């Protein structure tokens, strides 16, 4: 696990404060603004920041992220261009861990090993590959770990206990697990939360971040209480969509609201 991620998780645990991870889609509204958006999230109180690498086929994301990807790809860019902006941000912020989420094909296209090395060089700490389930991911996990990054596998409400345990045991020393919802939309939040609590109890030492379509500070708190932290992206991306100027300020104040709820 990267030092940055390790320290941040340890800090959150010692303070008994849930980890707040906030994300944006790279390229929305345009690629060069990415460092400023990440900075705005950190200023609002995000412990970890997430970048979604946009895809033309965001089949497993909800409509907000799908539309955001579509906007981002109106001016297509390569992974190395995205990572150029990450490097620019990393030069100013050496502390905040960065999670990069991508569909597998966007990492395969430049070559998986090359993509992993480039992400690590740019300062990415953890990688979540949306359409790469645990049983298909051994090659990618090896490359990510060899490059010094944290592979972030997913749990879903449909993941049975035996596989959830396998994933969490493998991730307790060198990873963080993301508990996500199903196919882009949450069907039954109460049921999903209940399942999340059951899964977290299987291997309590593994850090679990969850994202159950959180759109308010109260929802963020409810999710974070069920695990070790919350991952909020689509509600933040929604603030980017056609809302005019003062974007950075809007993101910062939304994240501040989440932070306050988590620390209350």
């Amino acid at each position, binding site marked *: 696990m990267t030092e940055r991620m390790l320290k941040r998780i340890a800090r959150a645990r010692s303070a008994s404060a849930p980890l707040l991870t906030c994300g944006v889609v790279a390229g929305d509204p345009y690629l060069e603004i990415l460092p400023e958006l990440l900075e705005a999230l950190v200023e609002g109180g995000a412990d970890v920041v997430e970048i979604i690498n946009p*895809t*033309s*086929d965001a*089949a*497993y994301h909800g409509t907000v992220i799908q539309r955001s990807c579509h906007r981002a*790809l109106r001016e*297509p*860019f*390569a*992974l190395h261009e995205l990572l150029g902006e990450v490097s620019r941000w990393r030069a100013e912020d050496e502390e905040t861990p960065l999670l990069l989420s991508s*569909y*597998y*094909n*966007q*990492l*395969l*296209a*430049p070559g998986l090993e090359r993509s992993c090395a480039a992400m690590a060089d740019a300062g990415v700490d953890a990688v979540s590959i*949306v*359409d*790469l*389930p*645990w*049983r*298909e991911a051994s090659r990618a996990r090896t490359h990510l770990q060899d490059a010094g990054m944290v592979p972030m*596998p*997913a*749990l*879903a*409400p*449909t*993941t*049975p206990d035996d*596989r959830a345990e396998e994933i969490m045991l493998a991730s307790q020393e060198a990873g963080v697990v993301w508990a*996500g*919802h*199903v*196919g*882009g*939309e949450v*069907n039954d939040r109460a049921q999903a939360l209940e399942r999340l609590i059951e899964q977290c109890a299987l291997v309590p030492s593994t850090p679990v971040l969850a994202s159950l379509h959180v759109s308010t500070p109260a929802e963020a708190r409810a999710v974070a209480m069920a695990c070790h932290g919350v991952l909020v992206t689509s509600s933040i991306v929604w603030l980017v969509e056609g809302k005019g100027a003062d974007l950075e300020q809007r993101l910062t104040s939304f994240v501040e609201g989440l932070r306050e709820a988590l620390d209350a």
Partner: protein
Amino acid sequence: MSQQQTRSRAPGRWGRFGGRYTAEALWEPLEEIARYFDEAIADESFVAHFHRLLDRRVGRPTPLSQMVRLGEQLGGANLWLKREDLCQGGSFCANLAIFHALLAARMDRTRLVGETSSGDFGVALGSAGASLGLEVHIFMSREDIQNEPSRVAQMRHLGVVLHAVDANARGRRLSGAEAMRFWIADLRHNHYATSMLTRPDPYPRMIGHVLDLIGAELRVQLRRLEILPDYIIAPVGTGGFAAGLFDAFVEDEHTQLVGVQAGGEPQAGRHAASLLSGGVGVFQGTFSNVLQDANGQLLKPYSIAGGLCSAGVGPQHAWWATQGRVIYTTINDREAIEAAREIARTEGLTISLESAHALSYALKLMPKLRPEQHILVGISGEGSRDLDRILPDAEERRS
């Protein structure tokens, strides 16, 4: 049988192709379908029921028709058609739809959820679902709905719940994604019934297994006629129909297998030739050939034939292409339309534009072969839905 020999390693893999690349949330539901599928095909009573329905409802066996006048006109080889256009509903999709409906009933599901582009599979699933008392939900892009009014009317007639999906192109890419999201929202009642080979395991092997019956039946028919085909030609969209036709002949050294993809509009650079112009990658849950740019973003496929309008192709085709066992080529829109007109004029048959792609390649080949040689073309469906695109004044009327 032969599929087992040409597939390597794990189930759902053809060499390095195939697999189950999905969100974690879908792994277990797909695993459950795989289990039910494996059990169903090992259950003699299930298989017997399926074959009974193929016989009494779908209309199997479908004929093998010789095109005598076309043969005389073009000289050279003998031309034969495997007539899946004569299946109930007018396409090979009826075979698969019945299987999905039986599997859904076995799993105690009450809804079939699928997607369609040409409308053929939507009609087939609507029909199969109605016959077993299952609700049928079909997802279709607005562009496809606009282009296939007769199939849309048929689906409505059959009681299908049609979901329009906003997409600025033909094809099942977005409607397929929406169908899967609808499926996963209620796993207790929904069964995902797709005809796309570009799907995570178990779908490519399930579709291949079911449609293998076409090739196996053809093999028996050819043996009775004492014909050893020199060429077997089939249209390839995601490739389900072609896989069903080819698989029984993969081990036959004598027979050259040819898959025809959509060449579209060559001058405009619009096509759906993923095996000739695409690269390998993960698309819609499987590792195979796909039309993509250098950054791994999908490129928009195009064909006048909705069923061929696919950015990706099934993993078995990527494997066969790598092995060189099947030759893949393209036929463009204009050539396909010409072939559809030619067979209507000469033999009195109305075939779909998908099938006309394969026929066009055969018509080019025939004069170059000897009179004792045989070409077999797979006709995937009938073409009444395509008349607005085939008739000589079609372009004028459309504008």
